[in-house]
């Protein structure tokens, strides 16, 4: 029963994601390449924050004010899930200084280093592929 409910949730979320993406396409919004460096920086930090929050929550932490505090226990992972979590930590650790560097260029109105931008998006993409 639980298995079926999980399948239903997965399908529902995918349908929702598809509908939202379709709406965005019809609205004729900007593509990523048309966005300003500041907008790209927001997207990078937003994805990082979401993935970071997911990791912290699964390991028993809650954000209280500006600080993360241990309020529960780490969830009972399978070995496969542990591997995913380790890889996720590795990517988050590697991408953080790159996003910080990218954002420092944005904050100081300096010319963006395209290699850094590509590397960040490649790592964020890897976060998605890692769960395939």
């Amino acid at each position: 029963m639980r298995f079926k409910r999980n399948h239903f949730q997965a399908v529902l979320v995918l349908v929702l994601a598809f509908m939202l993406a379709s709406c965005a396409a019809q609205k004729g919004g900007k593509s990523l390449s048309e966005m300003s460096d500041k907008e790209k920086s927001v997207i990078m930090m937003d994805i990082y924050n979401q993935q970071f929050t997911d990791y912290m929550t699964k390991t028993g932490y809650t954000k209280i004010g500006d600080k993360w505090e241990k309020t529960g226990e780490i969830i009972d992972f399978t070995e496969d899930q542990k591997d995913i979590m380790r890889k996720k930590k590795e990517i988050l650790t590697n991408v953080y200084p790159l996003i910080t560097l990218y954002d420092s260029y944005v904050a100081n109105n300096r010319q963006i280093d395209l290699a850094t931008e590509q590397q960040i998006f490649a790592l964020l993409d890897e976060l998605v592929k890692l769960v395939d």
Partner: protein
Amino acid sequence: MVDAVLEIAKMLLTAYFSYARLNGATDEEIERIYSQVKASFKTNTPDQLEDIE
């Protein structure tokens, strides 16, 4: 498998919502969103990520 699909969908939705709230936003709104996201990013340093045994 289901967890993986949910994870991908979550990532897509996050990217979409990020994109959607920036699209059509005024410079002032973008600045406000940027400040909010950056403040959170600064507190989410990777040294806080617990090792998985």
